[in-house]
């Protein structure tokens, strides 16, 4: 059980964490999310007593970290896989930690076996790959068999087998009744691992809820409806009927309809009443990534932009269109379709716009209002010598 109350940390005039209060409960994996520089690592360091909070306090099982009787037997942490002396062998590194907290030395070989490093235990950790370093860090966290575990980006640099192992390890640890607190940027991984989410942005709490609630609060669930391609008038008819019944319809690129505001059976009934055949009627829930992007897009400190290569690029031949930017580059809002509930503008009619990766909707060029951070879509035109970006279908235009 980790409990933070009004946690605040200032470095000079920069506030890294402001008035953060949350609880991390045992028996569940709690994900800790936030953009780069949002204060995740600072919070973890304060939990572990490495940084002193400017205000507020944080306790583990009711004690501040430095008042815990034998803290490493209560709390295990992986903060940074590189936080080892590279000249020391893995076994000696763990042995020194075990001795420091009064853990029997044979436990060292046990955890080396658990993380699969027993064959390289005698090698100096300087030569370890990132994934091996992560395993060594996880071994150090497990050394004291603690009831509270903190992991900062545990799957960084791990191979797929390692990622699966970490995922199962977290779940198994939580199932034993331990408190597991994990920060990560890999949304797909979090969606599979975490039961509960704590999201911070710019050092402040943005959400503290279960993964399921988080997704449904921060994205629109919708139904995809497809009418026969050969009969566009059926599509028009159904759209009108759904709008009349109080639903919202967004046409998708490939001719399907995205319907919100009506339950699936009601859509089916409407289609039946209006004598429209359906090829598809399927429920869709947004991914954790979409929900996360929508929530944090206002709290991102470090944002990528399109590489303009100003003045370094040959003039485009007259009459050619500058290429569209690849979705996601310099316009972070592409992840988040405008919420239909707020009467957001429909997507631009299907055009030559490239489809985003992951089958996400195309760049919402027609919805700048929904995303104040997105670049204006005219940006490439205003810089005619802009780079032919890596967009494959358009690259021949740029030549």
């Amino acid at each position, binding site marked *: *059980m980790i409990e933070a109350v009004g946690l605040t940390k200032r470095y000079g005039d920069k506030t890294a964490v402001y008035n953060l209060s949350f609880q991390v*409960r*045992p*028996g569940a994996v709690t994900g800790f999310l936030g953009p780069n520089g949002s204060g995740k690592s600072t919070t973890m*360091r304060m939990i*572990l*007593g*490495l*940084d*002193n909070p400017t205000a507020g306090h944080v306790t583990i*099982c*009711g*004690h*501040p*970290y*430095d*008042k*815990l*009787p*034998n*803290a*490493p*037997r209560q*709390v295990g*942490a992986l*903060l*940074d896989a*590189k*936080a*080892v*002396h*590279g*000249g*020391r*062998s893995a076994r*000696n590194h763990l*042995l*020194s*930690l075990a*001795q*420091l*907290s*009064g*853990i*029997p030395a044979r*436990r060292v070989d046990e955890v080396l076996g658990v993380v699969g490093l027993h064959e390289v235990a005698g090698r100096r950790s300087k030569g370890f790959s990132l994934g091996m370093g992560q395993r060594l860090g996880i071994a*150090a966290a497990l050394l*004291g*068999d*603690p*009831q509270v575990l903190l992991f900062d980006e545990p799957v960084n640099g791990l191979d797929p087998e390692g990622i699966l192992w970490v995922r199962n390890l977290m779940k198994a640890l939580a199932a*034993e*009744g*331990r408190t597991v607190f994990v920060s990560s940027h890999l949304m797909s991984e979090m969606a599979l691992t975490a039961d509960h989410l704590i999201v911070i942005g710019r050092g402040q709490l943005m959400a503290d809820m279960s993964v399921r609630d988080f997704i449904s609060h921060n994205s629109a669930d919708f139904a995809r409806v497809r009418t026969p391609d050969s009969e566009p008038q059926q599509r028009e008819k159904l759209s009108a009927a759904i709008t009349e019944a109080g639903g919202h319809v967004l046409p998708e690129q490939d001719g399907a309809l995205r319907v919100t505001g009506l339950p699936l059976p009601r859509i089916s009934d409407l289609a039946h009443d209006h004598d429209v055949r359906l090829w598809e009627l399927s429920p869709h829930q947004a991914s954790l990534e979409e929900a996360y992007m929508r929530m944090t897009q206002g709290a991102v400190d470090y944002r990528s932009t399109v590489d303009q290569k100003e003045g370094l690029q040959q003039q485009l031949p007259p009459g050619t269109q500058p290429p569209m930017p690849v979705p996601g580059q310099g316009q972070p809002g592409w992840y988040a379709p405008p919420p239909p509930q707020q009467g957001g503008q429909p997507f631009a009619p299907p055009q030559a716009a490239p489809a985003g990766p992951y089958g996400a909707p195309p760049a919402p060029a027609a919805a700048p209002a929904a995303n104040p951070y997105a670049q204006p879509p005219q940006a490439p035109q205003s810089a005619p010598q802009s780079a032919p970006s890596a967009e494959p279908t358009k690259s021949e235009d740029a030549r």
Partner: protein
Amino acid sequence: MSTPQPPMPQSAAAEWPAAPGAAPSAPAPAYPTYTSPIPVVRTHLGHALASEWTKIRSVRSTMWTLGVLVALVVGIGLLTGLVIANADPDLGGESPLSLGFFGLLLGSMCLITLGVLTTASEYGTGMIRTTMVACPSRGRVLAAKALVFFLVAFVVTLVCASVVGLLHVSLLEGYNASEPTGGEWLKGTVGVSLYLALLGTLSLAVGSIVRHSAGAITIMIALVLAPLVIALFMFSPSLSDVQQALFEYSIPNQMSIFYANSLSESGPSGWDPLWIMLVAAGAALGAAFALLRKRDV
């Protein structure tokens, strides 16, 4: 620790005395908790000492710096002894122990380096965060580091100084060298070894304050050499007092006092250098303790 303990809900917690500042009535946990089958022990300085001993013996920098120290002290001692013995000199009643001074002066650089690395390398690699998570009582870690380093440095220097002393005495027998007295032996081996181990401990404290290996080593080497170099360039007669003091209290001169061949007749004498270095190392360690407690890791 005889105060009655409030009943703790966790079985493992019952073994611990109530931590100061803990809520006296812990609410019963509404959630399942995990209890480790490995027995929980109360940690103390002994655990930290074992850990620091493992750390200092398991990195190559220790072997390198101590190896160079032994090579310098014994090698230079052997060379000077052989050269002087071959020249068929008249030592004029001097103690042959004083020839060990040159090797130890150079060897002190190795102790400075090792002392700084013992603390500062943990900051350079980030290991300090792992250490401090494993032992939240930061003072205990620094105390263990200082103790382990001091003992290692003292033992190694003592062995080297004794070997070189015996070597010189046996090589230079019969060249009108005086037989060293018991007091001279004590000062020339134990005294100078204590002094150098304390110099290394001062470096360790500086390393903990500066948190940067190269920076701390530079500061310490400057501390050893700068007073002599600065004094060399003080030509003005008005500064002669300062010049004299810089010569007398420079670390090489303080070391030579253990062999009773100081650069001057005034200034520290006898065992004074040891007390000076003890106070300096103690003050630096005190500052390191205070900063360690105050600063973020």
